[in-house]
């Protein structure tokens, strides 16, 4: 949680909270309603997959690069997929230049976990030759404008980037690595479509997809990743506490809302057409 609560005035804070108490939000959404997602894919010509995702006015551009390297000794036939996030100083006066801060580490971690543990990326498909050569994927997210809830936007952005992937296919020949001229695409790499849903909490009120003003005044957040029928990742952040019943309720909500969102976004439309 960023340390910027001071920049919201007491009056604005009280206004946001009193509205939430009436189950009204400053942008007229319902408590369990997302802002609009806008998605473009494969927009970066230098990247082997990319996405430009907006959630309301929050906007993240993500690109995929790869290297070929040695596998980890304990996973000799699996590639690696890493996620990085940078909160660019263009995106908000709240973001500072410099090495990744807590908020960007959190963004990368939560998105990474959603992908990693949901069996989303088929790391075994990223093996070129056991013990010798595997793909190392870099999914790097850049926040272009910040209007709250980077995590959910980042999750969709990273997933769309992987779906849009088109990585040159290599095989190990007698003279080392050779390129077949074909591509590994998102169709091969991506298995599950996990989505991460983030809820804010102020006092005892819980709501989906906090916008920036809501994020700045809320006590804390919880992000839950889920596939169609499984919870795959949970991360609480900030000083809010949740009762056990609230968490059970949010698990339920996540599967329900996630399923609808998955249908609506229809991310598989962004599969690369290259073969």
């Amino acid at each position: 949680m960023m340390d910027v609560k001071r920049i919201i005035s007491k009056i604005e804070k009280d206004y946001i909270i009193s509205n939430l108490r009436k189950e009204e939000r400053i942008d007229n959404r319902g408590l369990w309603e997302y802002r609009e997602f806008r998605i473009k894919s494969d927009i970066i010509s230098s990247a082997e997959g990319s996405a430009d995702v907006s959630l309301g006015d929050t906007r993240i551009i993500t690109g995929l690069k790869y290297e070929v390297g040695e596998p980890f000794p304990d996973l000799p036939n699996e590639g690696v997929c890493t996620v990085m996030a940078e909160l660019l100083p263009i995106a908000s006066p709240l973001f500072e230049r410099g090495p990744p801060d807590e908020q960007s580490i959190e963004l990368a971690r939560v998105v990474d976990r959603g992908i990693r543990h949901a069996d989303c990326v088929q790391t075994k498909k990223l093996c070129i030759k056991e013990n010798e050569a595997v793909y190392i994927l870099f999914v790097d997210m850049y926040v272009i404008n910040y209007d709250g809830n980077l995590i959910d936007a980042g999750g969709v952005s990273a997933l769309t980037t992987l779906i849009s992937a088109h990585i040159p296919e290599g095989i190990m020949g007698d003279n080392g690595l050779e390129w077949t001229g074909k591509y590994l695409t998102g169709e091969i790499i991506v298995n599950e479509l996990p989505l991460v849903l983030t809820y804010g909490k102020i006092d005892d009120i819980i709501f989906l997809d906090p916008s920036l003003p809501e994020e700045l005044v809320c006590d804390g957040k919880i992000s839950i990743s889920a596939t169609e029928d499984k919870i795959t990742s949970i991360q609480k952040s900030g000083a809010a506490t949740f009762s056990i019943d609230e968490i059970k309720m949010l698990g339920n909500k996540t599967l329900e809302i996630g399923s609808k969102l998955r249908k609506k976004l229809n991310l598989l439309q962004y599969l690369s057409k290259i073969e």
Partner: protein
Amino acid sequence: MPLIIKDEYPETLFREDGKRLDGRDNNELRPIKMEVGIIKNADGSAYLEWGNNKIFAAVYGPREVHPHHLAKPDKGILRVFYRMATFSVFDRKRPAPGRREKEISMIVADCLEPVLFLELYPGTSFEVFIEVMDADGGTRCASITVAALALADAGIPMKSLVSAIAVGKIDGKKVIDLSGIEDKAGEADLPIAITWYNEEISLLQFDGDMDLNEMNEFLDLAKEFLKSIHNIQLDTLKSKYIKLQEKTSKNKKDEDKKGDK
């Protein structure tokens, strides 16, 4: 490039007699030992052994904020620095703090802040330093538990203690308090912390997969054993005050005796 003995996982996490590899039942805690006041220079401190985990926590504060621009005019700030010794894990950790350590530091701070009255200490900071000397699964839960004790030892007003424990699934069975090998080779691991003043969850993390039923069962299971952790914390603090009392009353007796002369 260093060649390291391969850290292989066992094929099964249960023995033939149905016990876990370290001889525990599914719902059995590892041995836990806590002490407070162990670091003389600190404003408050605690030491925890939890299975093979060995963790020190020290609290300094309220004190002036460095660097100054982090200070807040309306409340104190809580900063947590979780660090692991290089030799606390199987492969030597690099000495500089890594991303994982920064992330856990943030999580522990988020977890402790709700029980403090930071608004009473504008312009100051509390620093909690957590040093893991030996690690064997569950260090973040252990760190929260020992840090809460150190805060209490420092005499800082708190709404309640915070206790934490991990529950999870290994070889398809629900267990509590996962050891290092169970954490790595098992299917699921949920570290959970509770703030006792409102009996709410202040830490919850999960990576793996579980359906809703499983999640609900995990939460209920954790709640039960969080109480055990809480009791050990309370006993540790009580025994400190008993020792203090004994010392005081002894001093008093000694003085009384002197007075008699």
